[in-house]
C-alpha cells in the first residue's frame, strides 16, 4: 500500500470515530431526557403546593369513612357468624 492509501484509511477511521462519539453523546442525551422548562417546573410545584391541602383533607375523609365502615362491618360480622351457626345447625 502506498502512503496515500494509508493516509486515507486513517482519515476514514478518524471520521468513523467522530461519528460514533456523536451518536454516543446523542443517545446519552436522549436517555437522560429533556428536562421540562423552568416555567413548567415552577407551575407544577405551585399547583402541587396549592392543591395538596384539599387533596389531603379529601383523602383523610375517605380513609376515615372506609375505616369506620370496616369497623361496623367487622363488628356486625361477629353476630352474623353466630346467627349463621344458629340458623344452619350442623348436620348430624
Amino acid at each position, binding site marked *: 500500500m502506498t502512503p496515500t492509501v494509508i493516509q486515507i484509511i486513517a482519515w476514514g477511521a478518524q*471520521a468513523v470515530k467522530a461519528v460514533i462519539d*456523536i451518536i454516543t453523546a446523542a443517545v446519552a*442525551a436522549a436517555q437522560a431526557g429533556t428536562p421540562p422548562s423552568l416555567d413548567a417546573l415552577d407551575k407544577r410545584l405551585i399547583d402541587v403546593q396549592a392543591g395538596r391541602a384539599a387533596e389531603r383533607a379529601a383523602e383523610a375523609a375517605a380513609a376515615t369513612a372506609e375505616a369506620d365502615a370496616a369497623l361496623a362491618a367487622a363488628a356486625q360480622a361477629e353476630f352474623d357468624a353466630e346467627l349463621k351457626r344458629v340458623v344452619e345447625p350442623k348436620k348430624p
Partner: protein
Amino acid sequence: MYRNLLIASLLLLCAALLVACSDPARTARREVDRLTRLTERTEVEVNRAARTALVAVATAEGHRRGAELKAAGCGPACATQPSTALIDPCKGIVAASEARYAAATAKVTAGRTTAYNAIDAVYAALRVVVDLLRTIDAGAKAAGWEAKLAAVVAGAVGSAADCAAAVAAFKQAIGGAK
C-alpha cells in the same frame, strides 16, 4: 483542508452536545423534575399505606367489639350503634372500643402527618432550587452561581432522602400497629 474542517466541525458538535448535557442549570432542572415526581409518588404511597393501616385497625377493633358485645349478651344492633345510644353494659363495651379505636387511628394519622411534613420539606427545598434557577435565568450569573446551585440541589436531594426515611419509619410503625 476539507478533512480538517470536517473533523473540527464534528468535534465542535460533540463538544456542544456534551456542554449542553452537562450544563448545571439543565442538570438542576432535571433533578427538580425527578424529585417532584418522586415526591408525588411518595405521597400517593403514604396515603395508600395509611388507608390500609386504618382499615386493618378498624377491622381488628370491629371483631373485638363484636365478640365482647356478643359475650355480654348484647344484641346485634349494638355493633353498629354509638356508645351514647346504648345502655350498660353494652354502652361501656362500645365506649371502651371507641376509645381504643380513636387511639389507634390517632397513631396512624399522626404518622401520616409526620410523613406529610417531610414531603412538604422536599417541596420547599425544590422551590428554593427553582427560585435560584429563575435568578440565574434572569441573567444574574454572579460568580459562584454553579456552587450555589449545586448546594441548593444537594439540599433538595437531602430533603428527599430525609423524606424517604420518614416514610419508611411510618410504614414500619403502621406495619407494627396492624
